[in-house]
């Protein structure tokens, strides 16, 4: 993955800072609770939701199992329909391909439809280095781009900004924004409409991602709301789509499942305003498809973690996550925040950095994300698996080794418990040095004067044997009294 967020500290530090920002917490709480309610209502309308979810899961699993075969089929169909297919092993290769394609057209400006894949590979920055300016056309992406900011949500990247902040930003950074601009969402949307209209009509090259690709027909599918997607996909002469290899579906019929799962999970609507579908070069356009690996095949090799590749980027898991709601998207240091980001980012990037190793811990394992996931990704299980795989700090490993040694023999445990019981008045409320990281957010457990085993023996039980229970099933009086 790209270096957009390189050098960020680990999640706990970012989160600790973010929760101090009461404006951010207010914005996030309001937005996530609104969307949660909308999603629940429209999902509740479909009495076959569980079956759709199972179909979504099994279609994705089947595709991933046969990904090589379906990618080759897709390539054949796109090529037959006049499109050109390119393959990119990593971000750098994808960026090189796109930059070359744009340069071949002679243009130095491109318009973009919101795309997670191009954000993941840092395409805008790479194009800028080649002297090509990329204009984001999705309203939220525009807000992020004008503010020189980072996205904080998959669906609504500017969710951390409220209307007053957006108005300020437009007045400061958007050329031609009306002086009397109010903070009404309608007025703000109108300002963006006027700002971008000329760009749409003049653009010669557009860059998009895709929500789905159909192997059987070579069709690409983009779901959106504003119409900026339709503008970019239909008006410019050259269209370049950068799509992760896991976005594939085998057949046209499979789309009937995902066109029900995605809008309801994502924006909480029965259907999003606009969906565009095209096959190869359409209505006189030139069409290039860049198939992106960038770590996906290594995720695919992991038996537990590969289910993350089912993800259709709906963001329902973000909206229900108690950690995301408080920490916000930036704390995750990735274009993929929230619960899905916590399992996707460390797998795509590897766990070399402190930040990426900390992400599997950015969860209370409550499981709300699994419950709402339209393709049934068991996020808590993957989190636990990644926690086991992450390299742990030396003090933690030493502590765990010591605990393991003590627990190995019951005599060692008994000795340790007696020692602890005698020393209990000397145990500080806060631990010193690096161990303070533990007690900063937790109380030290009360150490009892006597262990349960010692009490058991003292009360007349015998080691390894149960005390006699009378026929009425009640324990002897003195035991109950204690």
């Amino acid at each position, binding site marked *: 993955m790209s270096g957009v967020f390189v050098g960020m500290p680990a999640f706990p530090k970012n989160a600790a800072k973010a929760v101090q920002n009461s404006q951010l917490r207010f914005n996030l709480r309001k937005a996530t609770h*609104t*969307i949660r309610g909308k999603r629940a209502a429209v999902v509740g309308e479909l009495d*076959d939701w569980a*079956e759709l979810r*199972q*179909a979504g899961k*099994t*279609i994705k699993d*089947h595709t*991933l*199992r*046969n990904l090589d075969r379906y*990618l080759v089929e897709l390539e054949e169909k796109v090529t037959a*329909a006049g499109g050109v297919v390119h*393959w990119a*092993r990593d971000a750098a290769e994808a960026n090189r391909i796109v930059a070359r394609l744009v340069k071949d057209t002679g243009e130095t400006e491109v318009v973009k439809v919101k795309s997670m894949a191009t954000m993941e590979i840092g395409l805008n920055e790479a194009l800028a280095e080649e002297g090509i300016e990329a204009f984001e*056309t999705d*309203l*939220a992406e525009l*807000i992020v781009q004008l503010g020189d900011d980072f996205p904080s949500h998959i669906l*609504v990247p*500017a969710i951390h900004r*409220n*209307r007053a902040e957006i108005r300020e930003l437009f007045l400061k950074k958007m050329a031609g924004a009306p002086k009397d601009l109010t903070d009404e969402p*309608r007025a*703000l*949307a109108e300002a963006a*409409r006027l700002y971008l*209209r000329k760009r*749409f*009509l003049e653009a010669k090259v557009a860059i998009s991602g895709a929500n789905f690709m159909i192997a*059987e027909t070579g*069709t690409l599918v983009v779901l959106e*709301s*504003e*119409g*900026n997607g*339709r*503008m970019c996909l239909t008006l410019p002469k050259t269209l370049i789509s950068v799509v992760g*290899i896991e976005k594939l579906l085998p057949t*046209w019929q499979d789309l*009937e*499942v995902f*066109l029900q799962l995605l809008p309801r999970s994502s924006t909480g609507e*029965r*259907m999003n*305003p*606009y*969906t*565009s*579908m*095209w*096959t190869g070069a359409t*209505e006189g356009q030139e069409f290039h498809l860049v*198939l992106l*690996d960038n770590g996906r*095949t*290594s995720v*695919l*090799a992991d038996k537990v973690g590969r289910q993350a590749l089912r993800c259709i980027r709906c963001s329902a898991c973000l909206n229900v996550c108690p950690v995301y709601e408080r920490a916000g998207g930036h704390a995750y240091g990735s274009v993929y925040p929230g619960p899905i980001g916590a399992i996707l980012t460390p797998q795509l990037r590897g766990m070399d950095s402190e930040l990426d190793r900390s992400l599997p811990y950015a969860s209370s394992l409550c499981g709300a994300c699994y419950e709402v996931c339209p393709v049934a990704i068991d996020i808590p299980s993957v989190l636990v698996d990644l926690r086991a795989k992450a390299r742990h700090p030396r003090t933690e490993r030493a502590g765990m080794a010591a605990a393991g040694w003590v627990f190995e023999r019951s005599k060692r445990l008994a000795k340790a418990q007696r020692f602890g019981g005698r020393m209990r008045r000397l145990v500080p409320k806060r631990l010193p040095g690096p161990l303070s990281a533990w007690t900063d957010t937790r109380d030290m457990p009360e150490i009892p004067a006597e262990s349960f085993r010692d009490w058991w023996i003292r009360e007349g039980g015998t080691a390894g044997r149960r005390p006699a229970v009378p026929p009425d099933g009640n324990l002897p009086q003195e035991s109950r009294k204690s």
Partner: protein
Amino acid sequence: MSGAAREVILRRIRSAVEGAPEAEIVRGYRGATGEPGDVELFAERVRDYKAIVHVVPRAEVASTLARITEGRVLAVPAGFPSDMYAPSEGEPDGVVSTCAVAIAETGTIVLDAGPGQGTRAQTLIPDYHLCVVRDDQIVPNVPDAIARLDATRPLTWISGPSATSDIELNRVEGVHGPRTLEVVIAIG
């Protein structure tokens, strides 16, 4: 270069899934019904998106179009029935079209660039889109629509006017696509 990348990616995939069990697809959901869609439900669901909807007998479509487009000049794509709408002189400020399929459950209209629907740009750039839907084009649900459509045609699925939820997740109608969507459903 791309050729090498292709081989590397395909090889990586094959080694990643080697030995993994085959995954069967389970389809327990409601599939295509093949039945006609509910006109009332369709009208109600399109209205939910804040589009304007008229349900009129087939014989009254032309007079309805004449009434609601008074004061407007609409662009007319090739193949639009000439007995339904005759544009007056002047610069068009909107577009009228037919559609390929409509979905009752989701209130969706699908255009496939067939007769009367024009190119994708023709129904996108104007600020006003008027769409005529025949009742026999309405299907009950998404699987029915998929079954009726040809994937290789350029398809545009439209559910209400252009909208955004990017500011505090409030839905606001009207960004880049047509800000007004008006639908005339012809019955009988």
